């Protein structure tokens, strides 16, 4: 053929369109989300001292080692640099009490990344949020250790840290009266909760820090508000209707919104791309489901806090939601009326 007669040609790359791509990559997403968690981590360190650093660092190291170990064992490509194992470790750390024995942090990390993520096929194939499974495993296996909360007084020599109960625990066991007694009046209770000056998992306490990070993610369009807002709204409404001791519509939704792992969970865990629905209507349903289960557990179940189990249970439904809440396609309505 004539085209071959003209000697060597310049070699050109041939591939299917589109030939250009946005700058967005999986590593960039993972590292950006990690950065957005820095305020929460800083406040955790401020309130809970060096142990917050140790626990978080161990969770991160444990997660990354687990990723490396399982990928190595399975003969897969090592994907440590994509930042997803780092992020899971960071989230797990932020969801741990600062008092936790170090080996628990390591075991939980392995359950998170080694089992929940890698053994299910790696990033993109896990059914459950890895960090939350790690935490759930630890909570069920070591219930005492996982519910021993340090007093948030930044014990920089944290050897004999004093322990206390979380606001949600007090609310459940002793009621709103006791909470007010401890924190003074309602206003200072809200203020302390907002700042995060209370017992709890080391990265979950400071609402302000969490909201700064979340605002950054929303601004960068890394997360949408559909899941967080429907989640929070459902909890607020549920707490208001059923949360009071004096009958219906006497609950305090603000205490419920500002306590426990709700903010961290709603903005950073429930929005996990892999384990939440992809279509907007489905996401709203998912958020409502998370909120409903959270308030159900908080008010009626044995645990004072229900965010973790709520998200994990809804994770199971995410594929089902996606299957039933598909997008409505361009031109579909017209086609329906024509036929």
């Amino acid at each position, binding site marked *: *053929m*004539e*085209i071959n007669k*003209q000697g060597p*040609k*310049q070699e*050109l*790359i*041939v*591939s*299917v*369109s*589109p*030939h*250009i*791509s*946005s700058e*967005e*990559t*999986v590593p*960039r*997403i993972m590292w950006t989300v990690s950065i957005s968690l820095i305020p929460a981590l800083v406040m955790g360190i401020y309130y809970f001292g060096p142990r917050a650093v140790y626990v978080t660092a161990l969770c991160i190291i444990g997660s990354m080692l687990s990723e490396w170990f399982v990928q190595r064992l399975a003969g897969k490509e090592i994907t440590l640099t*994509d930042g997803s194992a780092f992020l899971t470790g960071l989230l797990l750390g932020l969801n741990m009490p600062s008092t936790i024995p170090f080996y628990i942090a390591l075991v939980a990390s392995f359950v998170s990344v080694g089992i929940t993520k890698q053994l299910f*096929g*790696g*990033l*993109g*194939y896990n059914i459950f949020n890895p960090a939350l499974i790690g935490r759930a495993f630890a909570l069920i296996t070591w219930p005492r250790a996982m519910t021993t909360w340090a007093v948030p007084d930044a014990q920089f020599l944290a050897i004999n840290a004093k322990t206390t109960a979380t606001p949600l625990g007090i609310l459940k066991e002793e009621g709103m009266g006791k909470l007010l007694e401890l924190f003074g009046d309602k206003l200072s209770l809200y203020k302390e909760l907002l700042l995060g000056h209370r017992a709890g998992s080391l990265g979950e306490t400071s609402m302000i820090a969490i909201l700064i990070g979340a605002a950054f993610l929303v601004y960068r369009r890394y997360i949408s508000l559909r899941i967080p807002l429907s989640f929070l709204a459902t909890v607020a409404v549920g707490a208001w209707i059923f949360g009071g001791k004096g009958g219906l519509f006497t609950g305090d939704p603000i205490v419920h919104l500002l306590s426990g792992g709700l903010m961290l969970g709603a903005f950073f865990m429930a929005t996990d*791309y*892999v384990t*939440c629905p*992809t*279509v907007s209507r489905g996401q709203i349903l998912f958020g409502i489901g998370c909120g409903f289960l959270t308030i159900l557990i908080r008010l009626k179940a044995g645990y004072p806090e229900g965010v973790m189990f709520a998200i994990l249970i809804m994770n199971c439904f995410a594929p089902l939601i996606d299957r039933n809440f*598909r*997008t*409505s*396609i*361009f*031109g*579909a*309505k*017209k*086609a329906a009326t*024509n036929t």
Partner: protein
Amino acid sequence: MSTFTLGGIHPPEHKELACNAVIEVCKAPQRAVVPLSQHIGAPCKSLVEVGQRVLAGQLIGNPEGFVSAPVHASIAGKVTSIEAFPAPIGRMVPSIVIENDKSDEWTPLEDDPNYLERAADVLKGRIKAAGIVGMGGATFPTVVKLSPPKEKKIDAVIINGAECEPFLTADHRLMLESPREVVEGLKILMKVLELDRGYIGIEENKPDAIEKIKNAASNDKNIEVWTLLTKYPQGAEKMLIKSILNREVPAGGLPMDIGVVVQNVGTAYAIYEACRNGKPLVERVVSVTGPGVTTPKNLRARIGTPVSQLLETCGGLRSGAVKVISGGPMMGFAIYDLDTPVTKGTSGIVAMEDKDIVHRTKFNHCIRCGRCVEACPMGLMPLMLSLYSEKALYADARDYHLFDCFECGSCAYVCPSKRPIVQQIRLAKTMVKP
């Protein structure tokens, strides 16, 4: 600002590379390769034999079906061979090779200053005879769009001046330099379709073109010039109709199902030339641009001119150029041979350096971030199409409206895992029936 509602993306436009370059006439090639199939539909049958002399504008390929368009010699000279050549879409296509005899002798063209007074059928006949096809890249024979079945009443015609593909500036320059001809083309279309309403849609990133076209159309109350939001794929037929008329082409349907005909700016210009000067479609404006081209230009090139000659006219490829695209970077085809000829659908030649292009040979798992769902102008779920195709579950992909995808590439553009979604969709389309 009007726009379509679902999805859409904002890739960097890079129009500045060529939008100020006045259209230059590219020298007629020494050897023109005129493919017998430059349109969607049946290929043409050659009317010439090897050794025969042909004149520029002479009919050399006759259509063999309703959805088809004739082809004409783009230069005068001797037919040296009829053989398969690579077409921009990658396939080998039977082509007529003409060796230029430098006479540039044309077949007699029939001038008609009173073209607007002709009957609709006469004008339609000229459009058909001129071999005009959609010049935005889809190359659908224009006369077929102008001949809807009786039960489909057409009530609007839109000239597509969106030019939403990054880099491309051919339509932009044509609107700037020949606004009157473009508007006349629209008037001919309105006459053929017996309409009293015509629209021209232009993205807002071409304010100078909007002004020129508005001026050219100012004495005609029946023509509306619409400024559209700069958003890809604004120039896709379905999106353009939604933006201007707020009508949705039914899934699986055609614009004519909702009474609309859309024609590209270049096509309108060709229609004018055919009806006014009797000139067949043997040349077109091509943007030769991109970071891999030394001096980006807009060239008026004869059909059959090899891409290599266009590039030489623009100072050649830069040393870093690794990919040459026929069309735009979102929907164009990467060509593997620089001897590939310009065809009726070649809106641009975009040369890219390695840093400008995406490599999808190695891609990651889908993380279900949903960016593709938000970007899809058709409201599809590209991630599901991609995942099902990857797992060879093509029938499941079909259930997710596989065949409503027109491969604009918005999903693959935004995908952080750099998944070859369009490629997977194309594969699935070949593996199942609609």
